[in-house]
């Protein structure tokens, strides 16, 4: 670490890993509710909302932490304002806390979700963006303060670098794409149309841009790879991500009441979406092969390369198999989508943020060597469990597609009878995943604070 102000990243990392733990605990409750709907005091809808909102928030917190580390380093100066960064951190934590309390209150008493100024007080009832309008506004303010702080830091030295530019471009795009989810429409079709702008252009647009920038940063930091070569490939990757991803949005507009031309637009562009992700895998391997000397932070590199691979497999392959309208007609709205969602988020963003933590935390803690064994243990527990979770959900999705969609059996019959074993196995592997996350969180708090076990 070169700059004191980079320490603020740790606040965000801590918040992120703790929320990650919460996300997995509620995820297991949700998985159990597939078997016993009344398993918990809160109904499935609230538990699922917590599971996914926790994920989104901890990944965002991780990205913010990573950015607070990267920007001073790239700009060669301290952060513009540490107090502002701290204020922004605590404001975010408080807002998120208030939103969570709101979800729980609404879950216990749905009548508390009253209408205030034409919008719901506790839960907007829109998937993923359930956070009420007052929280949306606070989140936007928080993100704007965060962007201001980083842009002002860049302007301090005006040392513009490619990683910095792409990272901030991705974050700005992210902030802008939150806005289409902030108004009410009477038509459910228009509602879902704009809602996909937010959801798709985040995860298949701005977040992938951020991922490409952080991947380039990590490869440089870990291996000392040539910045110019990394920058060139990063531009090609993000260029292709947006070329395929922006109009790939069309794959969400096949069946929601929008004109037929989206079948062509969505089918064509989204079929190409795996290409930039494959390029990132190649980029990671090519760079790693060019290593001179030994790599100290092997576990950091491990997570970095795994992120690239699972981004391609989860977001790319598991997505492309059901993206063509001819296939999607049968699989849309089934567990196939859930399987894709799990592996894509794990590969593209969970591993990315953990990689970033492993790459930057040693220097934030002021150590060069650290005990890496727990990092590997966490990786294998999480990855093997996630692969099996995805296999069980994919199996459930195939059974559902065949029996419900093709044969015409009832939804409840398929869910309760034919897919029961898939749900049971999912819970078991979910517990395996929880073990991995527990090891990870423990390692996060211990890293660099104990004598090295000499595994380096």
């Amino acid at each position: 670490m070169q700059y004191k102000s980079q320490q603020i990243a740790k606040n965000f990392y801590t918040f992120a890993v703790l929320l990650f733990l919460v996300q997995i605990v509620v995820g297991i409750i949700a998985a159990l509710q597939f078997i016993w709907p009344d398993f918990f005091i809160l109904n499935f809808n609230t538990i699922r909302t917590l599971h996914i909102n926790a994920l989104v928030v901890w990944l965002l917190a991780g990205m913010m932490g990573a950015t607070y580390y990267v920007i001073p380093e790239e700009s060669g100066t301290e952060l513009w304002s540490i107090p502002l960064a701290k204020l922004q951190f605590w404001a975010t934590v408080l807002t998120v806390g208030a939103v969570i309390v709101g979800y729980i209150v609404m879950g216990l008493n749905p009548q508390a979700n009253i209408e205030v100024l034409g919008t719901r007080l506790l839960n907007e009832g829109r998937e993923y963006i359930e956070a009420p309008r007052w929280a949306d506004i606070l989140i936007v303010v928080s993100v704007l303060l965060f962007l201001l702080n980083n842009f002002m830091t860049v302007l301090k030295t005006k040392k513009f670098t490619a990683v910095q530019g792409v990272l901030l471009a991705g974050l700005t795009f992210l902030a802008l794409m939150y806005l289409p989810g902030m108004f009410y429409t009477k038509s459910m079709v228009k509602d879902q149309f704009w809602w996909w702008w937010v959801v798709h252009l985040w995860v298949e647009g701005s977040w992938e841009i951020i991922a490409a920038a952080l991947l380039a940063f990590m490869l440089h930091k870990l291996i000392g790879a040539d910045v110019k070569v990394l920058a060139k490939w990063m531009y090609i990757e993000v260029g292709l991500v947006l070329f395929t991803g922006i109009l790939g949005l069309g794959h969400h507009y096949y069946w929601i009441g929008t004109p037929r031309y989206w079948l062509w637009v969505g089918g064509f562009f989204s079929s190409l979406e795996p290409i930039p992700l494959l390029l990132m895998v190649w980029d990671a391997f090519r760079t790693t092969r060019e290593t001179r000397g030994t790599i100290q932070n092997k576990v950091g590199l491990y997570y970095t390369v795994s992120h690239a691979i699972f981004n391609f497999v989860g977001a790319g392959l598991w997505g492309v198999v059901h993206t063509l309208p001819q296939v999607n007609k049968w699989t849309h709205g089934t567990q196939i989508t859930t399987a894709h969602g799990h592996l894509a988020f794990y590969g593209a963003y969970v591993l990315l943020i953990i990689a970033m933590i492993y790459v930057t935390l040693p220097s934030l803690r002021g150590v060069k060597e650290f005990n890496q064994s727990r990092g590997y243990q966490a990786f294998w527990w999480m990855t093997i469990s996630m692969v099996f979770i995805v296999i069980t959900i994919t199996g459930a999705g195939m059974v559902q597609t065949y029996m419900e969609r093709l044969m015409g059996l009832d939804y409840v019959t398929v869910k309760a009878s034919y897919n029961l074993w898939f749900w049971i196995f999912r819970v078991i592997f979910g517990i395996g995943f929880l073990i991995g996350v527990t090891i990870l969180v423990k390692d996060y708090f211990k890293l660099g604070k104990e004598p090295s076990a000499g595994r380096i």
Partner: protein
Amino acid sequence: MSTNSAKNLFIFGSLLCFVVLVILTIDTMGKIDSRAPEITEKINAGKKVWHKYDCIGCHTILGNGSYFAPDLTKATERKPKEYLKKFILNPRAIKKEAAMPKLGISEKEADDLIAFLDWMSKVDTNGWPPKPILAVAGAGREARPGYVLFQKYDCSACHQIQGIGGTAGPDLTYVGKKITDVQWHISHLKDPVSVVPDSAMPEFDHLSEEELIQLAEYLVTLK
């Protein structure tokens, strides 16, 4: 390719794609309303009920949502509205093993919600969800008059026979073993609550006497 040309390709290529997306969005916005019936105040009130109770937290609509409970895009096409209303008000009074809890939805909210779902079912979704191919291929294979009526009045929307059909109402695979009385079935079809007090099944009193007898005679053969 130099770094600079890669950068320019990224910036201008992305901007171009975004401009195309905006143009398509404007065009789509102009066309959406004509692909669905007009939205009345009641339908809009129903949509607000949908949001208030976070229905999408368990169900899907237009295929998007939580995959925990059935898709509701065509709910009013698949199930009688009388049934839907009773179920929404108190699911487990209608079906003991229902996963859905009683949410405290009021009568008016239920009516509005059903109006919204009815609007939803009329949206032109480019043919989604598709009709199951085996159900289409197997239709009308069994020629017994009672079975033909069973299909004509879409009884399998709510009732299963040998694993095929809905789960909203009781499974009828062995109904002939449980209730052997043809007259009971006729009274039940005409006015379900007269023999099953908390039934959510709508009245099928618009069937002719002959149809009622044929259907009842078919039901008692299911053993």
